[in-house]
């Protein structure tokens, strides 16, 4: 395809000996956010624990024992991390195209609802694999539809996706509430009947040590989605174009990439990813859709994407970190109120959002000075 005849044939350039981007730089890029997060969580946690008259060391020991120290706690962390991985991947997928999807909560809820409806509609005894695939498709479609609305409004009318996704959260959740409260609930509750098909095995079915924890095979689905997202972003033409739009929309347009189409794709698939996350609760844990199950998961997904540096594997680690915080709150509740973790979450996000660009600026300055 190239017209090499056009090129300068002198070939006097030095031999192609080149190093990839210095590893130190890459390591700094990848490690700064989690380190900042951890450091700030520790400092702030100390203060809160002390304000409650407890010893930080003791409380932290309890926290670790209650989360990573036993199989049940670890299972619970994995369960919570699964949902956060989905919403975190969803947010980061949008952000790679330069779009902020704050609608994770309603997309997750819509996905869970669709998965429950599918599970209810399928006859008892449907083979798991078929039921699972159908439920995932339904969940993804539902989330995708919720994601496509702000995408369309952005592409067609230029309506800012942040506001539209927030507003849509309220609208979709109210709609789902109307469905549940008005039509589909088991009397005296705000949830649907139990599904007939598509129940995902729990980790405790495979290894009894996880007994009682809600961790289930949705975790594997999350891993697969993370790998798929990574592959798409960094190995395909679509991902090349999506990231180009996120970095420099004008250059992408110049390169023949339809910015609007990429926006549509990015936000819709962001919704699809969040929607699939609904299976963790519905197929893996409760086996029904319950009003409000997604509460807060969308906003936390932003934190997860941020700490995970918008990289799919970073997102997985960040989801694990935030899930540990959340489960840790329960473990220490006897000594310090679990609400402490709500504070820490907020503090960590603010600290990372604030400190990371600043830290990077300082580092860049230092590097420049040392080069000079």
């Amino acid at each position, binding site marked *: 395809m190239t017209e090499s005849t*056009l*090129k*300068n044939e002198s*070939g006097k350039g*030095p031999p192609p000996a*080149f190093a990839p*981007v210095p590893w130190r730089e890459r390591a700094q890029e990848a490690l700064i956010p989690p380190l900042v997060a951890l450091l700030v969580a520790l400092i702030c946690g100390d203060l809160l624990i002390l304000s409650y008259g407890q010893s930080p060391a003791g409380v932290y020991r309890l926290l670790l024992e209650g989360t990573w120290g036993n199989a049940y706690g670890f299972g619970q962390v994995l369960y919570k991390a699964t949902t956060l991985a989905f919403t975190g991947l969803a947010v980061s997928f949008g952000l790679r195209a330069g779009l902020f999807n704050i609608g994770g909560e309603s997309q997750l809820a819509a996905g869970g609802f669709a998965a429950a409806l599918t599970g209810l509609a399928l006859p008892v005894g449907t083979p798991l694999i078929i039921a699972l695939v159908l439920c995932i498709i339904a969940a993804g479609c539902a989330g995708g539809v919720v994601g496509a609305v702000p995408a369309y409004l952005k592409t067609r009318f230029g309506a800012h996706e942040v506001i539209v996704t927030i507003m849509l959260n309220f609208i979709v959740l109210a709609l789902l509430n109307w469905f549940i409260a008005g039509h589909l609930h088991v009397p005296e509750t705000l949830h649907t009947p139990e599904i007939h098909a598509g129940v995902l095995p729990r980790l405790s079915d495979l290894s009894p040590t996880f007994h009682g924890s809600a961790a289930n095979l949705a975790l594997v689905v999350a891993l697969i989605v993370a790998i798929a997202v990574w592959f798409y972003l960094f190995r395909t*033409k679509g991902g*090349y*174009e999506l990231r180009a739009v996120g970095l420099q929309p004008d250059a992408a347009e110049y390169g023949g990439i339809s910015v609007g189409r990429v926006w549509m794709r990015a936000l819709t698939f962001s919704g699809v990813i969040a929607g699939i996350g609904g299976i963790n609760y519905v197929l893996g844990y409760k086996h029904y859709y319950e009003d409000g199950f997604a509460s807060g998961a969308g906003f936390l997904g932003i934190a997860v994407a941020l700490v995970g540096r918008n990289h799919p594997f970073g997102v997985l680690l960040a989801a694990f970190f935030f899930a540990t915080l959340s489960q840790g709150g329960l473990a220490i509740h006897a000594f310090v109120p679990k609400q402490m973790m709500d504070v820490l979450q907020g503090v960590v996000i603010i600290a990372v959002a604030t400190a990371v660009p600043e830290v990077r600026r300082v580092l860049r300055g230092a590097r420049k000075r040392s080069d000079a």
Partner: protein
Amino acid sequence: MKEREAGSGKGEAIRMTGIDKSFGAIQENRGASLEVISGEIHALVGENGAGKSTLMRILGGLMKPDAWRVEVNGRDVTGWSTNDAIAAGIGIVHQHFMLVPTLTVAENLVLGCEPKTRLVALDYRRAADDVRKLSNETGLVIAPDRLVSDLSVGEAQRVEILKVLFRGAKILVLDEPTAVLSPPEVRELWSVLRGLRDNGATVVLITHRLDEVVELSDTITVMRAGQTVERIKTSETTPSEIARAMVGREVSLSAGKRVEPLARPEGPQRDQGLEARNIHVTSPRGIRVVDGVSFSIKPGEILGIAGVEGNGQTELIEALAGLRPVFSGDILIDGLDITRRSVAARHDAGLSHIPEDRHRRGLILEYSVADNLILGVQKQFAKRGVLDQDRVMENAMEDVSAFDIRPPNPLLAARALSGGNQQKVVIAREMSRNFSVLLASQPTRGVDVGAIEFIHSQLLEARAKGKAILLVSAELNEVLALSDRIAVMYRGKFAVVMPASEASEETLGEYMIGAKKGNAD
């Protein structure tokens, strides 16, 4: 730095010495200096990217350089703020207007030094009165209650000048003030500036247009590549001397080394090349920025477009490239109508495009050189949607050595390269693809001399290969040296199209400033 004594007994209004300023890897100023005598019109000239605007931002306190010393009226003011600069009587009229479009003229004028009523409120009546008074004194008439977004460019500039005068500016700095003005507006501006000087003000005029310099200034400072290279009295120099100082080598103003016409094979190539028929482009605000342009370029021909920036060249190129909608008219590549086609479809039809702004359009700065070298042709490197990394690298290494991109590391982010090497990446990509028509917009802007010559040879080689090339450049000598035919664009129209052999800087200049065929308005 050569120095010819230009000073007289009068005091120095501005003395800047040893100014260094760099942005990342790009050094805008290195040891630049500027001395301006009180009560003169001083021209600061230099090519695009010579560091003129940076120097002025430092003077205005908008930017902190790395090493520097600034004196105003004999007082050391190194490290001052915008407010200090304003208080010392420095008023800067920026190239890109610093006006808030949603506010009225009066509101823009008083912003930052608002008159108050006895209570806390802003005294709108006094603001309007002040504006009218100032208008009467200076002859810059404008209604105080009009919204800035409704003003024409010329009117907006009037407001800009009023704004700095309102703040009591005694030293006026104007950054490329004529780039957007029509000839009558320019004439009006000149008389205003002369009037201000005669009333004791000092004027610094930043420009890269020699006719303005010679016509208006008392003293000239020439900058090149971030350094001050010469300071001359206008009456003691000639345009060609100034030009030589600007570019750093001998330039013949009347005729560049002209390319020989190619012997073109006659035959069934009537539809070959690029054809534009009666193109109209409107700005988002509905103004016709390209107003009925028609031309055709045959294979192996370079059509150069000269003109003062802002006369529709950018919009014309963007419309041809598919980056801006065409209001009416037809665009054909090798006989194929692509007027309503997408950018990608135009690529497929054989269009290649070197954009005028590589930082905004031409490159994705965070992407590696290798990834940038496939921008726009990424489709060809994908198999069922998956990019073939090996071929991407192979292509990159080929281009890197063929176009001598330094450092020769395709994994480096484009951001890390110098301006000249960044431009080589763009050129390498656009020249390596299969194309029959090339749009080259400011192909040598902000690159060093060595790269300029390389880029010129690439363009000529493409011409020899039978490509149809549209060249837009603010550098008149570039247009003169490379083109077969030259068009001058003035206020959205082609003022003239002539064979390059008949063109000279003088003849083109008259069309560029609208002097010829100038009774249009």
